[in-house]
């Protein structure tokens, strides 16, 4: 594992809301080409971790991306640097059409309308349902379709690291599996690195290179998927068998 280059790494990352500190010094690493999964119960601080990385909440400690500290960067600079977050509960632009949502995803790109249009076409081919509904308002899509749109929108910026916050939330198992397949494929074929937050541990473990366990703002365990599912207590608590 040491042979891989580190893409993202946080050192003693703390963050919270106003007077409340939620994350108490998080150290995590994502290497290039990895899918790293963060597991944790409700309220453990998973979403907060995502927000801290993408800079939408104030944070202390250090965050390095591609060897450069992004601690002081604003969200838009972080997106430009190549980290993009798919927010929990999708967070599409409901009043905008599907096509405009994708266009907004490419907001930070400067490589011309042609390249953007090509990418839109590419994601339409990955998610054909989006193409069928390209002129429809995003707010009128089904939950699953919105989740696809949210992921496609995030990928429109051609990120190096995708932060995915509970993509399975509220989706039928079949759709969830489909989504995870797509993410796994992107990872394999395009070398996209992913930091994925999940409650649905079983599914996530399948595609995970490594796993972190987050409990009330602290990383309590980490390791490969195999290592963690070998641990009895962890298996009982997070995998439910």
């Amino acid at each position, binding site marked *: 594992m040491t042979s891989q280059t580190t893409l993202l790494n946080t050192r003693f990352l703390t963050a919270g809301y106003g007077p409340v500190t939620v994350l108490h010094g998080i150290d995590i690493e994502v290497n290039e080409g990895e899918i790293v999964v963060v597991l944790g119960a409700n309220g453990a601080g998973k979403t907060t971790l995502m927000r801290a990385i993408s800079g939408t909440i104030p944070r202390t400690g250090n965050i390095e991306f591609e060897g450069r500290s992004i601690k002081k960067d604003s969200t838009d600079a972080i*997106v*430009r640097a190549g980290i993009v977050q798919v927010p929990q509960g999708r967070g599409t632009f409901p009043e905008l059409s599907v096509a405009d949502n994708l266009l*907004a995803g490419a907001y*930070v790109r400067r490589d011309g309308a042609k390249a953007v249009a090509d990418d839109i076409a590419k994601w339409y081919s990955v998610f054909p349902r989006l193409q069928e509904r390209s002129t429809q308002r995003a707010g009128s899509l089904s939950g699953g379709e919105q989740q696809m749109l949210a992921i496609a929108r995030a990928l429109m910026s051609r990120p190096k690291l995708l932060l995915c916050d509970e993509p399975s939330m509220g989706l039928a198992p079949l759709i969830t599996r489909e989504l995870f397949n797509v993410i796994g494929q992107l990872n394999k074929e395009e070398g996209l690195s992913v930091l994925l937050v999940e409650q649905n541990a079983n599914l996530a473990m399948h595609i995970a290179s490594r796993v972190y366990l987050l409990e009330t703002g602290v990383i309590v365990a980490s390791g490969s998927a195999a290592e963690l599912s070998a641990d009895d207590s962890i298996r009982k608590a997070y995998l439910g068998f």
Partner: protein
Amino acid sequence: MELFLQRLVDGLSEGSVYALIALGIVIIYRGTGHLNFAQGEMALFSTFVVYQFGEWGIPIGIAVIMGMAVGFTLGAVTEVAIVRPISKKSPFAVFIVTIGLFQLLNWVDGAIWGGQQLPNTGVGSKQVRFPSLFPNNPTDFVTIFGANIKIQSLGVIALVGVLTVALFAIFNHTRLGLAMRAVAANGESAKLVGIRTGRVLMASWGLAAAIGALGGVVFAGISTNVNLGLMFTVFIYASAAATLGGFDSPGGAVVGGLSIGLIQNMAAGYAPKWVGQEMKVGVAFLVILGVLLFRPSGLFGTSRVERV
């Protein structure tokens, strides 16, 4: 028929000014969720600035563009320096601040250019001869179907029409427009796709104030009397227009503004005598009340606006 045509043109030209101010209200509301009570007064300030530029001998066309630039700056600075820090506290504080700005700007106009300290009094206000964008002599009219239509009015309608088309082109086909729509739809997500929401909001307030400046100048041109209360009434009608069209719908603002202008002028002509001129402003009241009671999201607004 002649009368009808005249009223139609008058209604449309007044209505197009309401539409401009309403557009400003809607742009700001969509971005930040605030109703800017100082919208009309910002426009009035810029209008007086344009008048001043005119006094200094700057050609009116250039003066208007400079005035719009002043308006843009005023709006942008207001957002960054005042509204943004305050909105972290409470919507109530923002409301009070816009009322404060309303009062302050109106006073500044009076203090610099003379006149009453608050709108709506009209007494003793300084009469200003406004430089007009369009030929505005008693002989400047065209005759259509026997109706004498002022070139001024037609010019206003045309100018506002062009500006509106340009604005919608900005909304729908530019990066800034996409960013504005994205921020309006979901501010948090807008950040996550890399939009600098702060700058977009700043630009929105600036844009709203700049088109307000144009609205002010144009309205001063078609008004017989320019006083400190000029834009207050326009603001009332524009709010009615925004309510009618839906507070988060730019297209609704335009339709609303034109409708209110038309309703007003047609009512003045065709309503039974007993209604009278005094109750003209009642139109605005009834429209706002009626819409809020029966269709709170307006004609074209999304139901997001509706909150019970």
